């Protein structure tokens, strides 16, 4: 399943990246987050790992993730190492004078064949709400700091 939501924030890319480029700040705007902890002592960047869980349905879902793309002012992407197969990306692009378009993508695939597919389909609405709400909170956070 792939879920994508986007929003336009009234701030330049530098300002948005200050928050998006610092995964330690994610608990301050990510919705349904139960756990976001650094799993190593590396500074944010390619190769840094985090233990992440979102409350989806009855229990926390997630696992160990690793940042695989850390492109200043543009993209931050990660993949799941344990737990459900997961890819995430936050993408920043210019949206006119002093504005930034932020795209948040989550692709995931539960194991377990047909049951995994059904679970993915059942979860997709909640994951969609979570990504939309995350962007809303990010926008509020950035614009209040700006």
């Amino acid at each position: 399943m792939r879920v994508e939501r986007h929003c336009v924030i009234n701030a330049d890319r530098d300002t948005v990246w200050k928050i998006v480029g610092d995964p330690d700040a994610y608990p301050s705007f990510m919705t349904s987050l139960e756990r976001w902890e650094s799993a190593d002592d590396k500074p944010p960047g390619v190769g840094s790992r985090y233990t992440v869980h979102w409350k989806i349905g009855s229990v926390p879902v997630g696992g160990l993730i690793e940042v695989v793309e850390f492109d200043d002012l543009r993209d931050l992407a990660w993949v799941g190492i344990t737990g459900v197969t997961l890819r995430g990306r936050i993408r920043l692009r210019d949206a006119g004078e002093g504005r930034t378009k932020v795209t948040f993508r989550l692709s995931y695939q539960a194991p377990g064949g047909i049951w995994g597919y059904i679970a993915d389909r059942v979860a997709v609405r909640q994951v969609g709400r979570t990504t939309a709400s995350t962007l809303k909170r990010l926008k509020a956070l950035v614009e209040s700091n700006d």
Partner: protein
Amino acid sequence: MGSLGDVMEWARKQVASRVPKADLDQRDPDYIRDQLPVTWLLASLYFRADVTHLDRIPAEGPVLLVGNHSGGNVPPDTFVFTLAFCSYFGVERPFYQLAHNLVVSAPPLGWLRKFGTVAANPENARLALESGAALLVYPGGDYEVFRPSWEGHKVDFGGRMGYVRLAREAGVPIVPVASVGGQETALFLNRGQWLAKLLFADKLLRLKSIPISLALPWGLNISDLAGHIPLPAKIAIEVQEPVDVDGDDQAVHDKVVASLQAGVDRLAARRRFPVIG
């Protein structure tokens, strides 16, 4: 009377010989991972479960998780908590659950051993903790799980506190796990301890109860040995702060039960209706 005694001893040995020896290697993380979606669907859609404060469980090392038990022979609290633990810590973290001899020796339930379920006895428990695993135990066992539904929010281990000695000897913390809702999956009427004694099931099968309940699809359900279809009661589970094993057994046991009862009361206070939650 001598021959009756011989028959009972023979039957006891037959049952005991069918209880599989604990083999921790039977736990299969890949199998568990493949089963997580179906348990997640069941937990999220059917039981609308809610598991909180898993962060209170030490992130690594052996730990004894002590829960109150509900739901007869189809206890939803066990599989919901197992799902939550495996989702939170990953299937890679070794995690075992103790279960009644009859559960682990029943051929149709052989798959439980892949989840890490082993027969409930002190030797298996020690083995699991010494291997560095997390271990889930329900000291109340078959006594607590068949309490009448109107005592659904009462933590009652029936005086069993062997788990405290186990934690002390293994040098591990105890983390209480409180849950509510399981006793609303059927209408449990009576533990039937008198029936177990009458039929010698307490001596032959280690069954202290032959419970009587009203449950789907049987209607009147005696013994619950064949299980039942649980009503879709909302299951709520709260993991509590670890309890240090630093007093005598009774003092630690009292602390654990008080913590569990407080948790159960808290969770019960949030319920507005039986089953619906």
